[in-house]
């Protein structure tokens, strides 16, 4: 088994080395004449307004959150799927309860609108157009 996973290791290494070698090779032939404008960030031809490292919409966190929970659940289903046939209905009911609980939670967040990408968050209403 370990030998199989050492293949993975070889692949990971080779992938990294390949990227590195290509970039190094590129360094031999590619030009480099950086200047300040060239290194400035692209923003459709305008000068960037501030930097982009600002706080982001919390919606993304909610999605990630629900995903993580599901992800964990799903991981448990894999061992189940492997033994499921040999164990029969017992395993089925076990997992039905397992999934049932999860589905209840899922239904709850669905119902509460956590899955919606709410368009107007209330805190959005911003000053008028005349600000600058």
């Amino acid at each position, binding site marked *: 088994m370990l030998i199989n996973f050492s293949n993975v290791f070889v692949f990971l290494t080779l992938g990294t080395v390949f990227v590195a070698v290509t970039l190094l090779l590129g360094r031999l032939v590619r030009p480099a004449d950086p200047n300040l404008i060239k290194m400035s960030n692209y923003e*459709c031809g305008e000068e960037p307004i501030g930097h982009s490292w*600002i706080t982001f*919409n919390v919606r993304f966190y909610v999605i990630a959150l629900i995903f993580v929970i599901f992800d964990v659940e799903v991981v448990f289903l894999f061992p189940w799927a492997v033994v499921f046939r040999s164990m029969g209905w017992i395993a089925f009911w076990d997992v039905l309860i397992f999934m049932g609980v999860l589905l209840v939670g899922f239904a709850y967040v669905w119902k509460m609108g956590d899955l919606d990408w709410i*368009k107007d*968050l209330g805190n959005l209403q911003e000053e008028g157009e005349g600000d600058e």
Partner: protein
Amino acid sequence: MAGADEKFMQVSMGPQHPSTHGVLRLLVKTDGEVLSSIKPYIGYLHRGLEKIAERVTYPQFTPFTDRLDYLASMNCNLAYAMTVERLLGIEVPRRAQIIRVIMAELNRISSHLIAFGSLSADMGAFTPFLFGIREREFINDLFEMACGARLTYNYIRIGGVSQDIPGGFIEKAREFLDYFPPKIKEYNDLISYNSIFIKRLADIAVIRPEDAFDYGITGPNLRASGIPWDLRRDEPYLVYGELDFEVPVGRGEMGSTGDAWDRYMMRIYEMEQSAKIVRQCLAMLEPGDHTAKVPKVLKPPAGEVYVRAENPRGELGFYLISDGSTKPYRLRIRAPSFATLSIVPKLGKGVMIADLVAIIGSLDIILPEIDR
């Protein structure tokens, strides 16, 4: 610690951005994907046409009107020619009038094809865009036959058209008219009634009739809001009065009246109508002069006129003041897209970035006309 503004990210979309249709710049404030305000910045294509008009003679300005709304140069030529003719009191021969209508309507089709295509491309479907351009090439060929250019025609002149239509034009145009309507059906199957497309456009950026009036919106965008106003029918010029065509209005088929999908669909319907008009006009053509007698040097009497015509993007108006010399004293261009764009800040609150693209695309603005 950054101020309260840190919650919002300011991004400038454009001037070089794939879906701002030229060089529009939108300064948007976003909270994640949701926009809280949009400020359009224009003028990146301001070429000073109004000033140029004061410095060239009347006929010399015609080529510049080509560059006003280059997707519908014929219509721009037409509106300008009509303005000067009104000032000069020239009566255009009937054949020239019919040719003008043919050209204007063909150009309307080709302009709407771009509108249709670029909106689809903005929505991520690139193929309809190329299909649209493929059909457009056909029309370009027709125009090239008539006037020798593919985009900037300079064909409709003061007093008529520059040359009579060449032999073979009518047949080719008929061929196009046979070829084109099935394509519209194809577009509808491919994209118009695609559920993703509908989802993206329905109920987005609804323009209510009051807003449409307030913001001076005209043309298909106005009709999409359910107001049947079409200068071709309501203030007929040329031979439009004799033609039989419908003015489609938005009915809110997929959402509410005046949403982006309605605006999109207006263009599809109008292409059908335009094809119908061209067909009628081709049948009406009878021999005659292609231009009225126009003196070599144009010196209109002092006076002011305001003439408007129905362009693919709305009402194009020329407000012309003459002081009796060979050059216009003041030529003011009332561009439909300019007024249309001014509603964007209002529409673009609380929508998402992707919707913004849909809004701009469905309004079908064109920058040289806005910036002039």
